[in-house]
C-alpha cells in the first residue's frame, strides 16, 4: 500500500473519531446510537479494506471475515427473540390496580350463557381437585384435608351457598384449606364459575341486596366495578403464606368486611395488605426520572391529613412517582376508603 494511501486512511480515521465524539454531544434521540454505529462501521471498513488489504486481496479472505459478522448477527438476533420478548414477566411502568370492569350486565344473575362459560373455566381451573363432574374426587383430592367440595351436595359449605358467598369463596379462597383464591380470574369469569358450580346441585338460596353490597356490588348498577387486583407479586404471596396470623390479626383489627376494606384491595399490591408498604417483588429497575425508590411508603403521609387531601391524592396520583391516579371513585367511596386507610395507619 502506498504511503500516501496509508496516511490518507489514517487521517480519515482520526477525523471520524472526532466526528463521532462531537455527534455524541448532540441529542439526536434514538439516532445517536445509529450514527455512532454507522461511523464505527465506516472506520472498521476502512481498517479492514485498506490497512488489512482486503481491497487488494483475494475475495475469499473477505468472504471468510464477513461470515464471522454474519453469524454474530445471528447469535444476537435469536438471543434477542428471547431476552427482549419476555412479555409481562418484566412489568414496565407503574403497576396498575386492575379496574376489572365487568363486561356482562348483572353477572350475579345466573344465565345459561354464564353456566356454559363457567363449565369451560371449570375444566381448566378446578378439575384437578374437584374432579371433572365436581364431585370432589379430582386426582389431587385424595391428598387433601379438608376434602374438596362436592358441588352436587348442599351440606356444610364453609361460606354458605348463596351466589354472593360462593363469589367470596372464589375471590378469597378458604383459609385453612387448599382452596386458593382465584382473584386472578376476572370478576366475570368468577361469576361464570359461580353460576356453573351452583348449577351442579340443588337450587341455591337467593342473594339479598345486603349480601351483594357486602361483596361490593351495587345491584342497582348494570355492571359491577369490582376493585380487585389482577395478580399479586410473588413476594407478597410468600409473605402472606408465612404470616397467616398477621393476616388474621389485620382482619380482626380492621373490619375486613367494610366497604373501605373492599376498596382497599386495589391498593394492596403496593401498600401491603395492612398498609405496611414493602418492595414490589423481584422486578427490574423501575427507577423514575426523579430517582424515587420503588419502596412504597407507609401510609403516614400528609395525604392522610384530611379527606380533602386524600381526595386530591387519589385524583392526581404522585407525579414522577409510582402512585397512579385513582379517579374513578365516587365521593362516598373515597370516604369509605379514607376511613379504612386511616384505620390502617394507626
Amino acid at each position: 500500500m502506498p504511503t500516501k494511501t496509508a496516511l490518507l486512511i489514517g487521517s480519515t480515521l482520526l477525523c471520524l473519531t472526532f466526528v463521532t465524539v462531537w455527534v455524541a454531544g448532540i441529542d439526536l434521540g434514538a439516532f445517536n446510537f445509529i450514527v455512532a454505529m454507522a461511523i464505527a462501521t465506516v472506520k472498521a471498513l476502512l481498517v479492514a479494506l485498506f490497512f488489512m488489504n482486503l481491497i487488494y486481496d483475494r475475495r475469499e479472505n473477505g468472504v471468510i471475515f464477513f461470515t464471522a459478522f454474519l453469524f454474530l448477527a445471528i447469535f444476537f438476533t435469536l438471543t434477542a427473540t428471547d431476552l427482549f420478548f419476555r412479555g409481562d414477566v418484566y412489568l414496565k411502568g407503574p403497576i396498575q390496580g386492575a379496574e376489572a370492569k365487568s363486561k356482562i350486565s348483572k353477572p350475579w344473575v345466573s344465565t345459561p350463557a354464564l353456566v356454559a362459560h363457567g363449565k369451560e373455566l371449570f375444566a381448566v381451573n378446578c378439575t384437578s381437585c374437584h374432579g371433572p363432574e365436581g364431585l370432589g374426587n379430582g386426582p389431587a383430592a385424595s391428598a387433601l384435608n379438608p376434602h374438596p367440595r362436592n358441588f352436587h351436595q348442599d351440606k356444610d359449605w364453609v361460606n354458605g351457598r348463596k351466589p354472593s358467598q360462593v363469589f367470596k369463596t372464589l375471590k378469597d379462597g378458604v383459609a385453612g384449606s387448599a382452596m386458593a383464591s382465584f382473584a386472578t380470574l376476572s370478576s366475570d369469569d368468577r361469576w361464570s364459575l359461580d353460576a356453573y358450580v351452583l348449577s351442579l346441585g340443588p337450587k341455591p338460596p337467593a342473594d339479598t341486596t345486603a349480601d351483594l353490597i357486602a361483596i361490593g356490588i351495587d345491584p342497582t348498577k348494570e355492571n359491577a366495578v369490582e376493585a380487585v387486583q389482577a395478580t399479586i407479586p410473588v413476594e407478597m404471596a410468600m409473605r402472606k403464606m408465612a404470616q397467616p396470623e398477621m393476616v388474621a390479626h389485620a382482619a380482626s383489627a380492621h373490619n375486613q368486611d367494610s366497604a373501605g376494606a373492599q376498596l382497599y384491595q386495589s391498593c394492596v399490591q403496593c401498600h401491603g395488605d395492612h398498609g405496611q408498604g414493602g418492595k414490589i417483588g423481584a422486578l427490574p429497575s423501575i427507577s423514575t426520572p426523579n430517582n424515587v425508590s420503588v419502596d412504597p411508603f407507609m401510609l403516614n403521609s400528609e395525604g392522610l391529613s384530611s379527606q380533602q387531601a386524600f381526595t386530591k391524592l387519589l385524583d392526581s396520583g404522585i407525579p414522577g412517582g409510582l402512585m397512579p391516579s385513582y379517579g374513578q371513585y365516587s365521593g362516598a367511596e373515597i370516604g369509605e376508603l379514607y376511613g379504612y386507610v386511616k384505620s390502617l395507619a394507626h
Partner: protein
Amino acid sequence: MSDSHGTHAMTSDDGGVVHHFAHHFATADDEFEAAKQGMWLFLVTEVLMFGGLFVAYGIFHGLYPAMFKECHEFLNVKLGATNTVVLITSSLTMALAVSATQRGKRQRAILLLTSTFMLACCFLVIKYFEWSHKFHEGLLPGKHFTNTEIHAKKADLFFSLYFVMTGLHGFHVIVGMCLIAWLIKRTVKKELGPQYYTPTELVGFYWHFVDLVWIYLFPLLYLVN
C-alpha cells in the same frame, strides 16, 4: 532435528533475508497465501469470541437503557477518545511498518514497529489510569460494586461488562506488544524483508483487528446516549 520436513531455500538479492518454505507447498507464494488465510480464519474466531461479549452488552443495554445511560457518565470520554486516537495511529504506523518491510527499508520498519509498540504502551498506561480511578470510586464489577452515586439498579452489570470487555481487549494489546517486539527482533536480525515478510503482515492483521475491536468498544461504552 528428527522427522523434520525438507524445505526449499530461497536466497534473496538484497543480500540479507533468506527464507526456507515448507516442502508441502509448491511455491513460497502458496505458503504465504495459506498463512494469510490461516490468520483470517483466526481473526474470525476472535470476532466470535469478542462478539459474545458484544452480544451480552447488546442484550443488557437493550433491557436497561436508562441504567446504561447513567453509568456511562462515569467513564472519561476524553481519555477514551485519546485512546482511540492512540490506537488508530498505532494501526497507521503498523501498516507503514509492513510496507517498509516489504520494500526493504529496514531502518524505517524498525522505527515504525517501535512507534507502534510505544503507542500500545501509551494505550495501556491510559487504561491503567482509567481502571484505577474506577477502583477508587467503587465502580467495580458485579458483587464488588460499592459506588453509591449511581441510582440505577443493576449498575454493577455495566461495570462488569466494561471491565471484562476492556480487560480482554487489553490482554490482546499485551499479546500484540509481545508479537511486535518479536518482529522488531527478527527485523533487526535481518530475518524479515522483501523476500519474506509473512510474520510482519500477519501480526499487522492481528494488530488492526485489535484496533477494530476498540473502534466499536469506544462508542458503545463511552458514548452511550
